[in-house]
C-alpha cells in the first residue's frame, strides 16, 4: 500500500485539504444562485450549534452507526461481520430487497473457494491473484475472510441447502481440484431471508442513492430518493460502506438490455457521486466478459434465458466453419481462464472466422447441451417449451457480454477511500480482473466491515454539520425532475445514445479508431444532448423518466471514463485488448489510471502504481 501513501504525499493533499478544493463548492454555488430561494428561517434551538441549511423540499433523516449502500453479496458478508458488534446497520438497496442485482435472483451461482485456506498461517501462504491489483490488500482481505468457516459452511448458515449432492447425500463439487473447489445451485436470495430478519439491520429498499454526504473531507452518510414515493431520504452514519454492483449498462442495446447479463439497476451511482465530489475513480477500462448467446433478441446475454460458454465450458466453442477452438494449439492454451477465452474469441474474429455480430459459435447439439451448467440447460428447455426455439438445432452465435465492470474507488490498506475519510469500499481493488465476482465480494465485504468497525471505535463526532450538500443535491434532483428545455430530449433517448455510442467501443477488442469515435460521440452527448434532457413526467410517484435522468448522467460519466481510460492504456491486459498495443507492458502500465472530473466534464488522470 506504500504506493498510495507516496502518491498522496507527492500530490501534496490529504483527504481534508482535497475536499476544500473539491466538487462540493461547485454544487453549493449552483444552489446559492437559484432564484426564489427563500431566506433562512430562524430555527428552534435544539441544543446543537450547527448551522442548518434547510432545503425547501422536506426530507427524512435516518441515523445509524453503519450505512451499507448495496444489499447483495458484499453487503451480506459485511453484515455478517457486524453481527457481534452490537452496532446498528442500515442497508440501502436500489431494487426491492432480495430481488435486485445478481443477488436477488433464483440464480444458480457457482461458489468457489480455496480448500486450503484454513491451513494458511500467514499472507505469504496465499497464492497470487494473478491480476493487476493491490496484492497486499487482496491478501489481507483473504486472511481476514476465509481462515475460519469456509464459504460452504458460511452460506449454509445463511439459509442455503446446497442442492448439488452425490447419491449418498454428500455435497457434489463441480470443481474439486487441489486449489479450487466449487459448488453449483447457490441461491443467494435465501441469504436475504436471513439478514432481513436481524434486529439491528434496517433495510431501505427501492431507494436510489444519488449523493454521498461529504463535509470537510469526511463522509457523513449518503442521500437519495425512495422511488415509489419520491421522498428524499438522508442517511447519517459514522461509517459508510459502498457495496453496489459494477455497472455494465453503457454497452450497446438489444431491445430489452445492453449486451450484458448484469442488471439495469447498476448504474455506478455511488462512484459517480464520488467523481462529482472530486474523488478518483479507477480501473474504468477493465471489465469481465462471457461468451453468451446473441439470439433471440429479447434474451441477448441473459444468464436466465440464454445458453453460453466461459472457461468452465469452452470445449464446444467453434469458428464459423465449425472448427473447435480447443483443436487449435494457439487458441487451446488460452481456454483455461475466463480472460483467455475472450482473447481466443477475439483472435478468431480477427482471422475473419467469427460471426456476423463479431462473436463466434457454440456447438449446442444435445450431447453438448447436456454437459453444460444446469442454468443453461434449463434456459434451453424453457425457450423450447414457451417459444418453440430450439438451441440444439444449430450452432448458437455467442458474443462477448460484459457481466462485470470495475470503475471503482481507490482504497487504502484499511479499505477506506483514499479521498474521503469514513467511506469504505467493498467494491474496490478488483483491478484488472474487471469487477467483483462473488469471491472478491465476500472477502472485501467482511474486510471492509471489520475495518469500519475499528474506525468507529475511535470515532469523533464532526465539529459541525451543515447539510449544505443535501440542499444542493435536492436542488439538482428537483431540477432534473421538473425542468423544461427548448427542443427537449427524454432521458431514455439520451441513455440509448450513450449505449449505442459504446456498442463497439465496449467490446473486449478496442481499436483506437473505434474508441476515438465513441469519445467524440460521448462528448457530443454531454455538451449537446444533456442540456436538452427533460422528463416527460414530473410525478413524484415512481417516475420512470426521473429515474432514467438520474441514472443517465451517471452512465454518461461512467462511459466516458471507460472510453478515455481504454484509449489511454497503451497495452493489452486480461480482457482488455488494444489491437495497436497487443503486448502486456508492466514497465509502463502496471498501475491504476485514477480519473478525476472537473466541473466542465474535463477528465484527467494520474497513474497510481500497483
Amino acid at each position, binding site marked *: 500500500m506504500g504506493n498510495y501513501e507516496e502518491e498522496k504525499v507527492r500530490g501534496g493533499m490529504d483527504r481534508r485539504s482535497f475536499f476544500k478544493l473539491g466538487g462540493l463548492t461547485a454544487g453549493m454555488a449552483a444552489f446559492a444562485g437559484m432564484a426564489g430561494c427563500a431566506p433562512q428561517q430562524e430555527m428552534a434551538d435544539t441544543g446543537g450549534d450547527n448551522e442548518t441549511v434547510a432545503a425547501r423540499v422536506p426530507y427524512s433523516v435516518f441515523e445509524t452507526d453503519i450505512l451499507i449502500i448495496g444489499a447483495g453479496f458484499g453487503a451480506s458478508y459485511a453484515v455478517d461481520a457486524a453481527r457481534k458488534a452490537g452496532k446498528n446497520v442500515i442497508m440501502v438497496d436500489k431494487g426491492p430487497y432480495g430481488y435486485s442485482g445478481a443477488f436477488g435472483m433464483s440464480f444458480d451461482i457457482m461458489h468457489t473457494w480455496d480448500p486450503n485456506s484454513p491451513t494458511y498461517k500467514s499472507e505469504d501462504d496465499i497464492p497470487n491473484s494473478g491480476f493487476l491489483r493491490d496484492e497486499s490488500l487482496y491478501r489481507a482481505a483473504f486472511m481476514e475472510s476465509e481462515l475460519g468457516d469456509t464459504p460452504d459452511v458460511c452460506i449454509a448458515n445463511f439459509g442455503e441447502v446446497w442442492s448439488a449432492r452425490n447419491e449418498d447425500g454428500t455435497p457434489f463439487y463441480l470443481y474439486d481440484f487441489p486449489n479450487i473447489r466449487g459448488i453449483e445451485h447457490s441461491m443467494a436470495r435465501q441469504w436475504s431471508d436471513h439478514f432481513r430478519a436481524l434486529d439491528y439491520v434496517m433495510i431501505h429498499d427501492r431507494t436510489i442513492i444519488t449523493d454521498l454526504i461529504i463535509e470537510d473531507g469526511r463522509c457523513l452518510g449518503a442521500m437519495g430518493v425512495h422511488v415509489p414515493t419520491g421522498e428524499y431520504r438522508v442517511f447519517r452514519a459514522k461509517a459508510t460502506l459502498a457495496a453496489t454492483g459494477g455497472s455494465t449498462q453503457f454497452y450497446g442495446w438489444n431491445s430489452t438490455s445492453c449486451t450484458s447479463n448484469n442488471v439495469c439497476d447498476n448504474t455506478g451511482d455511488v462512484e459517480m457521486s464520488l467523481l462529482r465530489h472530486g474523488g478518483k475513480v479507477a480501473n474504468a477500462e477493465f471489465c469481465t466478459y462471457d461468451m453468451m448467446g446473441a439470439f433471440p433478441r429479447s434474451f441477448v446475454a441473459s444468464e436466465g434465458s440464454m445458453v453460453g460458454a466461459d472457461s468452465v465450458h469452452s470445449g464446444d466453442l467453434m469458428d464459423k466453419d465449425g472448427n473447435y477452438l480447443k483443436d487449435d494449439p494457439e487458441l487451446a492454451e488460452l481456454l483455461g481462464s475466463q480472460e483467455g477465452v475472450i482473447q481466443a474469441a477475439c483472435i478468431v474474429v480477427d482471422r475473419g472466422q467469427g460471426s456476423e455480430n463479431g462473436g463466434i459459435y457454440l456447438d449446442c447439439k444435445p450431447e453438448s447441451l447436456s454437459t453444460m451448467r444446469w442454468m443453461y440447460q434449463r434456459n434451453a428447455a424453457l425457450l423450447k417449451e414457451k417459444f418453440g426455439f430450439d438451441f440444439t438445432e444449430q450452432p448458437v452465435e455467442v458474443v462477448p457480454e460484459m457481466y462485470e465492470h470495475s470503475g471503482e474507488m481507490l482504497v487504502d490498506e484499511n479499505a477506506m477511500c483514499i479521498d474521503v475519510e469514513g467511506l469504505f469500499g467493498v467494491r474496490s481493488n478488483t483491478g484488472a480482473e474487471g469487477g467483483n465476482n462473488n469471491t472478491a465480494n465476500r472477502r472485501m465485504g467482511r474486510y471492509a466491515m471489520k475495518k469500519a468497525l475499528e474506525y468507529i471505535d475511535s470515532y469523533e463526532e464532526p465539529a459541525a454539520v451543515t447539510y449544505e450538500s443535501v440542499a444542493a443535491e435536492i436542488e439538482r434532483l428537483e431540477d432534473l425532475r421538473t425542468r423544461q428545455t427548448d427542443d427537449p430530449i427524454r432521458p431514455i433517448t439520451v441513455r440509448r445514445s450513450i449505449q449505442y455510442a459504446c456498442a463497439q467501443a465496449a467490446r473486449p477488442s478496442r481499436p483506437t479508431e473505434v474508441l476515438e469515435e465513441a469519445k467524440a460521440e460521448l462528448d457530443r452527448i454531454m455538451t449537446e444532448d444533456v442540456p436538452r434532457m427533460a422528463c416527460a413526467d414530473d410525478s413524484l*410517484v415512481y417516475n420512470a423518466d426521473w429515474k432514467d435522468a438520474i441514472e443517465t448522467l451517471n452512465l454518461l460519466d461512467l462511459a466516458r471514463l471507460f472510453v478515455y481510460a481504454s484509449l489511454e492504456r497503451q497495452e493489452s491486459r486480461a480482457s482488455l485488448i488494444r489491437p495497436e498495443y497487443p503486448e502486456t507492458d508492466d514497465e509502463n502500465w502496471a498501475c491504476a489510471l485514477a480519473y478525476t472530473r472537473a466541473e466542465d466534464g474535463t477528465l484527467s488522470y494520474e497513474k497510481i502504481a500497483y
Partner: protein
Amino acid sequence: MKITVKRYDPSKDNAPYETTYEVPHDDEYMTLLQALVYIHENEEPLAFDFSCRGRMCGRCAMMLDGKPVLACVEPLSDGSHTVEPLEGVPVVKDLIVDKSQVQARIAETYKRVRVAPLKAEDLNEYNMEHEAELFGINYCARCQVCTAGCPARAMDPEYIGPSHMLAVAFRHFDAYDQADRIVEAVQGGLWDCTMCGTCTSLCNQLEIDHLTIWQKLRDAATERGLIKQEA
C-alpha cells in the same frame, strides 16, 4: 399490434385508465417485455419493473390478457393485447405493484429455524428422499404469478397461496431446519388448496413439481392427524 395498458398515477389521476399503443411486432420471438420497453422509449413514460430478463428475479410479474405472467419470458403474438398490474397486490403506479409485504412474510417463512449453527460435518447429510422437491423449490422466483392466479386463494384470501406454501415446503424438506413446518402448512391453508394445478401451469420454473409437493405435505399432515374435518 395493439397493446392496451392499464395506467394509473395515484398522485395525479382520479382513477385507473386505459391507453392503447401501436407497437410493431418485429420479432419472431417477441416478448411482452420488448413491447413495454418499446412503449416507454417511443411513446411516453411507462412505469414497469424488470431486472434479469430470464424469470429469475420475478420483478416483471403482471397480467397479460387477464393471465398472470412474467413479461420477460412471455411470448407475444401479433394482434391486440391488454396489460394490467399483477392482481392481489397494491398498485404503486402503472404496472408497478408493491409486493414488499407478501414477500417479507414469505421471507420470514424461508428463514431457517435451528438451535445451533451448522458445522462442516453437517453438510454431509441431506434429505435425499425429497431431493427433487428441494432442487425444484430452490429455483422459485417468488414472483407471485402462481398466487395471483390461484383459484383457491381467490375463493379464500386467508389461504397463503402457492408461492408462500412453497416456502413452508422447502423448510419442511430441508433436513437442517428444525421447526414444525407441517403445522405451519396446515395453518397456512394446505387443505384449502384444491390440487387444481393452476400454479404449475402458470409457473416458469419447470423444475418445480407443485402437485407432488402439495401431496407430500398432505401425506405428512395426514400422518400427523392434521386433517381438515368435513362439516
